[in-house]
């Protein structure tokens, strides 16, 4: 039979452990949360492209190349000198996902805002990378969401932060090697059902990757 003192010590130790673990988990979770400002989530993501700033800018100003790059997932049309309208499409269904207005705010700087679709806006800035390593494309994205929606989005692979990372990786690949590698639909000994399941896993291994 244990004494009351022993019981008390055990309960005390268990409480201290639980509180400690709980605090550690909370702190870790907080570290993974993006910054919040006036009700907006703010995430900053960047990618390094091995080309000078001028080459990165010219990629976006050469119309034919840009159209080829955007191909099936967006169209871009100029409104006036500094403003563009972008319409994003779902590559699988062709349905319009959102419309955005893009404003060039200076050399290597632009601002964009979604006009028809989810509440989002952001900026993109091109900065020369050190050691002649090319250009850092730095993007800031502001979007409305909540902790639960963000958690569900991250779990389902459908979240603005993940989209931003994917987009930056895509842009880098298009500029550096002119294409996006895709190994879906390569030969395999899978049945159609196994292939669908494998495509889901491919999607999970792709979404949010940083290159």
């Amino acid at each position, binding site marked *: 039979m244990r004494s009351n003192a022993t019981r008390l010590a055990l309960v005390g130790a268990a409480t201290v452990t639980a509180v400690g673990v709980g605090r550690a988990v909370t702190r870790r979770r907080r570290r993974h949360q993006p910054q919040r400002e006036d009700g907006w989530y703010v995430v900053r993501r960047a990618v390094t492209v091995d080309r000078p700033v001028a080459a990165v800018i010219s990629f976006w100003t050469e119309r034919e190349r840009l159209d080829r790059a955007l191909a099936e997932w967006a169209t871009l049309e100029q409104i006036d000198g500094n403003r563009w309208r972008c319409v994003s499409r779902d590559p699988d269904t062709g349905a319009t996902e959102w419309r955005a207005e893009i404003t060039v705010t200076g050399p290597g700087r632009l601002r964009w805002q979604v006009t028809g679709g989810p509440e989002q806006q952001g900026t993109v800035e091109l900065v020369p990378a050190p050691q002649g390593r090319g250009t850092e494309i730095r993007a800031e994205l502001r979007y409305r969401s909540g902790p639960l929606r963000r958690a569900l989005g991250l779990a389902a692979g459908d979240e603005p932060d993940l989209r931003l990372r994917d987009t930056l990786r895509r842009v880098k690949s298009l500029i550096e090697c*002119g294409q996006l590698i895709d190994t879906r639909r390569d030969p395999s000994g899978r049945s159609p059902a196994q292939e669908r399941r494998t495509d889901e896993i491919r999607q999970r291994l792709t979404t949010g990757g940083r290159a």
Partner: protein
Amino acid sequence: MKALCWEGVGKLKVRDVPEPRVRAAGDIIVRVRASSVCGSDLHLINGFIPAMREGDILGHEFTGEVVEVGPGVRRLAVGDRVVVGSVVACGGCWYCRTEQYSLCDNSNPQPVFAEKLWGHSPAGIVGYSHAAGGYSGSHAEYVRVPFGDVGAFKVPDGVPDDAVVFASDAMPTGWMAADFCGLTGGEVVAVWGAGGVGQMAARAAQLLGAERVIMVDRLPERLAVAADRLGVETVNYADTDVLEALREMTAGRGPDACIDAVGMESHDVGPGYAYDKAKQTARLQTDRPTCVRQAIMAARKGGTVSIVGVYAGLVDKFPLGAAMNKALVLRMGQMHAQRYIPMLLDRLAAGEIDPGYLATHPLPLDQGARGYEIFEKKEDGCLRTVLHPA
């Protein structure tokens, strides 16, 4: 077409699969003439490298003939006989432009797993699981090669398929292992693993100036082949204390450079090995680092340890203290195929390296599963099984 598919841990089967098509401007389609098994395939087959899916086509070391080219291909034409590097490289990123092809930024379209495990994703590899991009492998009649201009090289006339096939992986891997050693002439180099990569590393070390090469393995027939073909000295760890032997052979100094051409499934004798194997089986460690431990302990003070055997994740009892206090240089990596292949093809054509003897077991693709069994169990003096789809 027929292809050798992974059907679950330890299970392989030849299946009928659709033929690959050109999907991007830089793609080429190669009709495979020879496709070798590789020690690193065993890690995939045995489930030690994750993200394999049922139906994946294996094979990453191959040679063949170009049968179709994408509109963006400049260097190659239909009918060219080519050997293709195992790592996929885009040719346009900083790593490719500085000839560090196996670190290519753009060739793994599924980088999330590698990023979680390693911080960043290196290049994709043909036929090497979904963690390395999910590319279909070369144990098939046809294979799609992305960035054909970057990864495929014309084969010199007169070099047979069963020799040039090793320019795809074993030769560049071996060469890079020796290159890591920074040889300037006269060194003693020890090589763990007398398989295809180890023997190519030994030959490369000789060509780069090593005075003596000592190979460590447990299979007397492999050591005998190495001694006979390359004139190396040998140590059989099954009946010899490797560290003592290497110390005596170098009059107390230890080898100037030690090459690990074995990797995560290395063998040993004794209770320590049983412990490592049990831990790996229970997934308490992903890799068995026996060779690299020995290499670090054996290397001379200030020497180099060069690791080209494949490791996937975490190891136990890594002697970092020995490496630190002996001021060792540790170099490692997947090989930069595209950097070395042109030079290796020249040496092949000149007869300086002749890897043809590694192809001890040429077999038709239909017998692929049996071919891997012979290779894994080292039956009948097998160094490499080479599959021929046609």
